[in-house]
Every structure is written in C-alpha cells, then in structure tokens.
C-alpha cells in the first residue's frame, strides 16, 4: 500500500481518492473475511488451520509472482502447472537418492527456468501468441511425463519431505512461508527500484512504443519467462515435497489458480499494469476461501463457484473504476508514458 501512495503522490490529486485502488478494496475485503470468520467460526483461528492456509498460500504466491511478471508484459502462461508437474517429478528422482533440499530445489529451479525459457523463445522468436505456445508446451510436458515415468514415485526418503514435515520456524511456521516472504519482499523491491521492471510495464502497455524508446521487447519478454521459471521451480518443489509420493500430475491445472490470483490482485490481463502487493492479497484470499467455507458450514463443493464469483466481482469493480477514471483524466499517449517509463500502470 505504501508503495502505491508514494508513487502516486506527485500526481497531485486528493490523497484519499488515491487510496481507493484495487489493492485497497482487496485489503478491505480480506479484513472483512477475517473479521467475519472471527465472529462466525472462532475455531478457524487454530494454529493448524492458519498454518495449512499459509502453506498453500506460500506456493500459490511464489508461482503467482512469476505469472504476474508474465501477465504484466501482456503475455500469459498456461504451461505453469505443467512445468511444476515436470519439476515435481524431476526433483523426486533427485530426492529419491537422498539428496538434500538445497540440491533438489536448485535442480527444480533450473528445470523451471529452462522450460519457461523455451516458452519465451516460442513466443518471441516465432511470434506465436503466448496462449497458443504455452498451450502446446503444456500438452508436450504433460504428455511426455507418463512416457518417462510409469506411475508415481513412491517411498521418498525423509530428506525429501523434510521441508513440509519438519522444517518449521518456532516449531510452527512452515519454512515455505519464509521462502514466500523473502521472495515477495525481494520482488517488491525489484519492481520498485529496478529499471528492468519499468521495461516490463512499458512492453505490456505498448510494444511498438517500447521499441521506439529503444527497449528490446523480445529480450524483456523472454526475461519475464526466465524469471518466472525458477519461481515455478520453487513452488513445484514445495508442492512435491508435501508427501512421500509424487505423481505425474502434481500441479496440472494449477495455472488457473495462479492466473486467478493475479487477476484478482488487480493485474490487467491486457498487460501493462499490476503490482506484487495485489497478487499477494489475491493469493491470500484464494487460499482462505475453501477452509473458511468449511468452517462456516458450507460444502467444499461450492468453493470453485465462490472463487469464480469473487474474481468476477473484482474484475467488474476494476473495469468500472477504469472506465470512470478514463472519463476524468486526459488521455496521455502510451508512447509518452512508456518513454518516461515511470509507473505506466496507473496512468493508463
């Protein structure tokens, strides 16, 4: 939130109005859920429930940050789930030998990087639309897995499940949450201060204008995929190490939850806008829904529908606020915005 107000201050409009961002609404919504749970189902605030929610939140968030970078460049990655499934199987092979977490997590990050990089190459070098390219590689990855591994990998050693079963900070907080926190803070700083992040927004806003300002659009797009890859690798590692058995379909379909978290977090699927803090809030809300519904007495069968409703509501609210904003502000040509390369997301 702080990041938002800092950036927007120079615009010289009312401070309160500036606070009414997607992130602000999300935060209000999140607090409302948490307060409602406190009143309706106090049992929800047990150590176990909170930690289960946080653990799911951690890997959802780590992967969603990667997805966010890709969506900011106006691309999309529906191969994320498939990449994480491949990561899960590969690290299970490595972990089966008794290798420790740093080793197989590093392997997972490299696998994620390479596969995601391939996606980036298809999209930029061959000009294949991102959705088509990643759909094809999804089929390739999930199709190739059963050829390599027949069935699942079982009986993984304690060193493999150490992260999920034993690695707890203060005896309770899963280490995966610490990973997520470090990565999130790192990326928030990166998006705030690095020059590269401005290029991400510029490319997402208007590729042509970005080219004119001297940005190598293809390079920026590939880098977005290359950065997302290791994040998928870490998320895939957390998912895979959650049990002593790894199947070939560990994270298939998970990309939809990632996209949902990113979109709920206020990132426009058209690219050029979106913040990490929004994704954090989006991912946290999505992580809460199913357990919260269970505690207030609703069948988990409804969770997909409820999540869909929340996302729809968020998108509608965002689109209405964009429409009303556009009426009031003078439209600044995209080229100028990108050239100045500062917080292009909000101006648009």
């Amino acid at each position, binding site marked *: 939130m702080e990041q938002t107000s800092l950036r927007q201050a120079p615009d010289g409009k009312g401070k309160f109005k500036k606070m009414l961002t997607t992130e602000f609404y999300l935060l209000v919504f999140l607090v409302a859920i948490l307060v409602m749970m406190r009143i309706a189902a106090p049992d929800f605030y047990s150590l176990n429930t909170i930690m289960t929610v946080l653990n799911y939140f951690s890997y959802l968030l780590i992967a969603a940050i990667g997805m966010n970078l890709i969506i900011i460049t106006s691309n999309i990655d529906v191969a994320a789930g498939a990449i994480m499934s491949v990561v899960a199987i590969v690290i299970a092979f490595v972990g089966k030998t008794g290798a420790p977490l740093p080793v197989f997590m590093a392997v997972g990050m490299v696998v994620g990087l390479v596969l995601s990089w391939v996606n980036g190459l298809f999209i930029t070098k061959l000009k294949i639309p991102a959705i088509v390219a990643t759909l094809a590689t999804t*089929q*390739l990855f999930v*199709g190739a897995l*059963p050829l390599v591994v027949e069935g699942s990998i*079982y*009986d993984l050693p304690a060193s493999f499940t150490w992260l999920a079963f034993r690695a707890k900070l203060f005896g309770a907080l899963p280490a995966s949450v610490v990973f997520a926190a470090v990565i999130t803070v790192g990326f928030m700083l990166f998006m705030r201060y690095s020059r590269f992040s401005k290029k991400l927004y510029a490319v997402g806003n208007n590729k042509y204008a970005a080219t004119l300002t001297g940005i190598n659009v293809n390079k920026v797009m590939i880098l977005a995929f290359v950065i997302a890859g290791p994040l998928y690798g870490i998320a895939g590692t957390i998912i895979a190490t959650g049990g002593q058995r790894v199947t070939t379909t560990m994270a298939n*379909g998970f990309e939809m939850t990632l996209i949902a978290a990113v979109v709920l977090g206020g990132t426009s699927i058209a690219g050029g806008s979106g913040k990490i803090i929004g994704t954090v809030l989006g991912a946290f809300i999505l992580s809460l829904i*199913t357990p919260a519904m269970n505690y207030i007495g609703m*069948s988990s069968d409804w969770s*997909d529908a409820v999540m869909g409703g929340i996302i729809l509501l968020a998108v509608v609210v965002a689109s209405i606020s964009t429409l009303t904003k556009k009426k009031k502000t003078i439209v600044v040509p995209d080229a100028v915005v990108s050239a100045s390369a500062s917080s292009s997301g909000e101006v648009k």
Partner: protein
Amino acid sequence: MIRKKRFTLVLVIALAVVVAFAFGACGGGEQPAEEPPADTPTEEPPVETETESDDVEPAAVKVTIAMLPKFKGENYFDAVKVGAEEAVAELVGEGADVELLYDGPPQNDATNQNQVNILEGWIAQGVNAILVSPNDPTAIAPTLKKAMEGGIKVLTFDADADPDARDLFINQGSYDAIGSGMVKAVASKLTEKGYGPDKTANLGIVSSAKTDANQNAWLDAIKALIATDEYSWLKIANEETDVYYPGPDETETQKQSGTLISRMGDGADQIQAAIGLTSMATPALGAQYESAASKPDATKVTMTGLATPNALKDYIKNDANPLDTGVLWNCMDLGYLSVEAAYQYASGTITPESTTMTTSRLGEREIADKVILLGDALIFDKANIDEFNY
C-alpha cells in the same frame, strides 16, 4: 535475410515435430487412426468360433487378449498389469498360446475418446477378447457393441460399462464390500483408542468431485453401514462440512485434507476418524498429518482410506501417525482374474451363462448376473503391509 528465413523454417519444423510428438504422446491412439478404415474385420471371428468347439487343446489357436485400463501410470493399474502378465505366463506354461496387449490413455488425459481410439485399433486388428476399465460407461458403449458385433469377446474390469455393452464384468469388490472394509478398519482402530457405543466418534471423509460415481457409491455404503446398530456410534455429524470434495486435483486435495486434520481431536465437536476415498486423498491425509503445525493426538484419532499399500507404507509403519490402515482390493488378483476370465471365455471354457469359473491361483469364483466377483476388501496395516509391493 535468407539466413533468417532458413532459421525460421528450421524452428517451424522443429516445432511441428515437437507438437506432433506432444499430441502423439497424449493421444495414445495415433496408430489406430492411421490404420485403414477401422471397420470390423469379419474374417477373424470364425477362427475363434472353432476354438469353442475344441477347447480340449487350446494351444492350437492363438488367443489375443487386449487390456485397456482407465489410464496408464498410477501403480494401481501397474499392479493390475502385473497380475495380468502372471496369468498369461501361467497359461503359456500350461501350453496355451496367449498374447496380452496392454495400452491406455496417459493419466492426465484419461478420456473416453482416447480409450475409443485405442479400441478402434484393436477392433481393426481383430483381437479375440477385450478387457476394458471404462472412463465413461455410457459413452464407450457404442464402440464396445461394435466390437461385440465383430465377434470380439468384450469384458469389463475395475469399472463397468452399460451392461448390454459387455458380456462379463470382473468386479473387484462390490461397493458394499469396500465400504464395509473402510468402516471395519476405522471401527477396530477407534475401539482400541477408547471409543465405542458409550463414546461416539465423528467421521470426516475426503472424496473426489461430487459427480464421481465410485466415490458416491462408497460413501453411500459407508452411510448405510453406520446407520446399522453395530456401527451406530460412528457418525457423520454434518454432511455439508464433514465430507470434502476437492475434485481430482492434487494441490486442492492436500489443502482440504489439511483443513480436515486441523478439525481432528477427541472433542465432541471435533472429528475422530478420517477416511480418504481416493488414491490421492488417503496419502494426502498421511502427509498433511506429518506437516501439521500442531498434530492432533494420534492416540485419540485414526485415519484410513483407499490407496495402494506403497502409497501409505511410511505413514502406516509410523506409530506417531494415526493413518493406521489402508483399504483396497488385491489389484494383482484383479488383473489375474480378468485375464483368466477373458481367456476362458474366448476359448469357450465359460460362457456368460456359467455360474462359476475356476482358476488355479484363486480357486472358484461365482458368476452371477454376468458379474464375476473378486472378493472381499483387503485391509492392510502395520502387520502385513510389507507383503504387498504395489
């Protein structure tokens, strides 16, 4: 410029190869499609009718049995395959000429269409018998009927198709048998932990999607059983919240199993026994217990469910983990019985009207209503889990 074009061309070709590979890998049924029109061959069947008359010396005619699981992979079907291969080895050892074809869709693409593609190929080849575990009992029926019209013996195993689309069904365990296996497993462990008619216990159940027929039938069997006097001290307190439907999704199953575990304990408003109805849910319960930040007292709660022994081994052997038992049918025996039935039917030893069939390994099995029943559920625990390797 030319160089660049050539580079693009190479990339395009590479992509084409990659995509073709990908779809080939997913389809699993590419070759059949390339075969000449997949019309039913009429030459083959008569050959096999002859066998029926001279089943005294089956070695004379080759019997090809084609086995189609719901999907390849998952060691459930791997175990079935091992049993099937053992049956073939046994038959060959007795002098019969049997060949087993085994193919299925990949695990994440277990669709009816993929199964139909594979079947069309086998119908074109003119195999003698087909063993199918259908993903969709109704949608696969026309293809199975086509095979039957072509003189191929059609049997289902593991999951049934529409009854008029197959000659025999090898049922691994009735829904009641499996349901009662799970209730018995839970009841005996809960009794050890101090529950019983004087102290009721709440059940929590992790299913698959709400539309999944098998899981619903098992759930109904469990509900019917805990409504009887013997198990009336087991309760599902609130079906809305105590039965979880995470769907066939690994991360969702893990998350919801975790939520269930945080609701476990010995309080009256808590849950004392968790049952997983899928091979994904049961290991997830074991794993989420291990991951839990503050674990419910293992001496006050118990967990069980459907899964292969290998998927639960570490949790069952670990006394600190309340996943005490697992329930399944003997998968290898299912594969063995299926191939035996297919062979005996194709070679004329049995007909759908027979009332019994005999195998050397399993002895006599009843055939009722064109259904061959494998037998009771297998309950495994710390004492016998090492006997199974699947």
